[in-house]
Each structure stands twice: as C-alpha cells, then as structure tokens.
C-alpha cells in the first residue's frame, strides 16, 4: 500500500466516522450534499402539532435491517414456505447465484410490510381530509391510508401493498391497520414469509415537533405461532422540507444486469 493510499484511506475513514457522529445523518438529497443546517440537531424540539404528521421523516440506518428481525416460531405451513425462500442475508442466506429474492432478482415490488420493516428509507407523509399518504423514497412508491371512517374490506383480493385504514387514537397518535397483503412478498431481507392472513398494526406517535415514533405489530396465524412486535418505538427524525430525495428504484433491468455480470460468474 502506498503512503498516499494509506493516508487518503485514513483521512476518508476519519471523515466517515465524523459523519456518523452526527447521528443518523444521511445525504438523501441529490445532487450535492445536504445543507449544513440539516446536520445539526435543533436546539430544542417544539411541541408536537395536533393531528399532524406531515413532513419528511428519516429513521437513518435504523430503518434498514439486512438480517431480518426475530420472529415467533413458524407454523408448519410457514416452515414450508420459508424453505423456498433463498435470501441474500440473514438466516436463509445462500450464495448470490442461488438467491431468489423477488425484490432484488426480479424487480418485484418490495410490498408491505417489507417497505417499513426492511427498506424504511425516508418517507414523506402527506395528509388530506380523507387520507394519509405515505410517499416512500425507496421504490418511489406510495400508500394510501384511509382516514375517512371506512372499514377494512372483507376478504379482499391480495395487493402488493394491501388495504389500510387509520384513525387518531389521540391527538398525537395515528393507528393504521392493514390486511390483504400479497404473500409473494417477503417480510424482510432474511426471507421471512407471510400469508394473505397477515394483519399489521402501525402506530405513529408524534413525540414532539421533530420526532416521530413508529411501532409495528404483526399477527399472521397461518404463518407464525403468535403475534409479535417487529418495531418498537423506532424514532424517525424530521428532515428539511426542501430535501430532494434520491431515486432508489430497484428495476428489473438493473437486476438482470447484476445477475448476468455478478451472480452467474460466481457460481
């Protein structure tokens, strides 16, 4: 290793550690770096506004979990489905030529709840009189959460992102229920399976002006032996409203290029 190489490597490492010391800072805007102001914690967070979650929220690296989450034991049906999932990480990890993750190898939609369990990148929340819209940076995908008082549909056709309704439990907590998800999707990057009987409850609690806590509970009696909480008060931080989020779209074309150039030769 040359002296210059070593020096620049050390310098870059120091810079990286410095960036990490800012907490969960990520330069989500592109082109260019986030404005300096976005790297600074507010001196004191103001009180949470009433029934208002609007803004761009970021859980930083904590929003992403490559190895998956602990789950309850699988049912026999869940075991059988889980065995067919060949993941790139976590408990079902296999060499890359064997991975069959529908997201990374086919460009399938991430689906719900994987979008909030594994790929929770920044999300912009928009509210209308009848709904709450979740605009995810990952996939540039959105969800509609109906808050107009409607009930969840009975025995719905499965959808990649399911059917969601929400209500305000109090002035600072939105509770969202989702059913009707598509069991072709995985729960996370470890290939944890789910069925179309999955019911997910998300709780968005606005702690103050700049912090939103997310808890996610799952119940899928066809796949798991008991309900569980996958995320417990995960903090999301409000990021500047002018942030121009990057595109982060896993396309089928790029997945095929990766398979051709990387996965196939590695067999």
């Amino acid at each position, binding site marked *: *290793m*040359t002296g*210059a*190489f*070593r020096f*620049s*490597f*050390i*310098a*870059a*490492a120091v*810079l*990286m*550690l410095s*960036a*990490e010391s800012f907490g969960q800072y*990520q*330069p*989500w805007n*592109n082109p260019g770096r986030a404005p300096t102001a976005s790297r600074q914690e507010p001196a004191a967070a103001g009180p949470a506004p009433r029934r208002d979650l609007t803004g761009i929220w970021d859980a930083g690296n904590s929003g*992403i979990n*490559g*190895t998956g989450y602990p789950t309850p034991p699988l049912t026999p049906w869940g075991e059988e489905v889980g065995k067919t999932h060949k993941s*790139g*990480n976590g408990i079902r*990890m*296999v*060499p*890359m*030529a*064997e*991975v069959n*993750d529908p*997201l*990374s190898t086919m460009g399938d939609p991430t689906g719900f709840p994987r979008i909030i369990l594994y790929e929770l*990148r920044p999300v912009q929340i928009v509210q209308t009189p009848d709904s709450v819209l979740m605009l995810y940076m990952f996939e540039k995908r959105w969800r509609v959460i109906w808050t107009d008082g409607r009930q969840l549909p009975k025995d719905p056709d499965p959808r990649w992102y399911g059917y969601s309704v929400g209500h305000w439990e109090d002035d600072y907590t939105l509770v969202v229920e989702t059913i009707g998800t598509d069991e072709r999707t995985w729960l996370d*990057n470890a290939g944890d399976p789910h069925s179309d009987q999955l019911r997910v409850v998300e709780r968005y609690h606005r702690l103050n002006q700049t912090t939103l806590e997310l808890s996610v509970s799952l119940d899928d009696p066809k796949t798991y032996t008991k309900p569980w909480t996958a995320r417990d008060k995960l903090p999301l931080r409000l990021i500047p409203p002018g942030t121009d989020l*990057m595109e*982060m*779209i*896993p*396309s089928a074309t*790029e*997945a095929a*290029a*990766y398979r051709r*150039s*990387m*996965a196939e*030769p*590695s*067999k």
Partner: protein
Amino acid sequence: MKVLLITAAVLVTAVPLVAHHGAATFDTEKELTLKGTVTEWIWANPHCFLKFDAKDDTGTVRNWVVETQNPTTMSSRGWRRVSFKAGDPVTVALQPVKNGAPVGRIVKVLLANGETLIAIGSQPDAPLPQQPEK
C-alpha cells in the same frame, strides 16, 4: 501493467453490510489489491458494480466485476455516478468470490488523483503511525 497482489488475508474491520445478494459468496477473509483500467462503472440498484481489466500473474488480462452497495449508500460515502469512466487507472482492494472467478466486492479504490473511495470498513487496515514522544 503489472498486477500488484499486495495483500492477502488482511484483517478488515467491516461495518455490517446490507446485502440482497448473498454475502456468503465472497471470501471475506481474503483481500486482493489489483491495479487495472476501468472498462465500465454501473451506478445501479440494488448494487453498483465496477468492471476493470487487470493482468493476472501469468500476464493474462482478466475483466473483473466488483460490486458496492446501492447508490444511496455509496453517495453517503462520497461515491458518485461519475466517479469512474472507461480508461481510468485504478487500484482496487477487493474481496473475491470463493470460486476463483474475477468477481468480488470492493473494499476501497485508489483513483489516479490520489483520492480513495471506501466501500467497506470504517477504520484503516493498519495502525496509525505513532507520534514520537517528546
């Protein structure tokens, strides 16, 4: 161009990687450093990858394909869509795949201008020089 097979079995302090594509494929205990010439840089999800030509120890040119994480993650480490272009000389430290193919994942890259782009790890692979005591 002479291949520099500088380092093997270097201890790497790696941050946990978020991989869709089977980290089990790579020999994470081994690190090669190769000097070569860029043929293509693909800035894509879920992984970017760099292709470059380098001679092996018999003088045969092999086209290596080496991956990084996604553009979002790499942007936070200073990598860009324009970080490389065909013809650029590079020195690439990489973890190869286990089957001997010219495929791997990037640990770091030294550019011709002296800049180093880091893909894996958050600290140097050698101790910092000690300041002599006065």
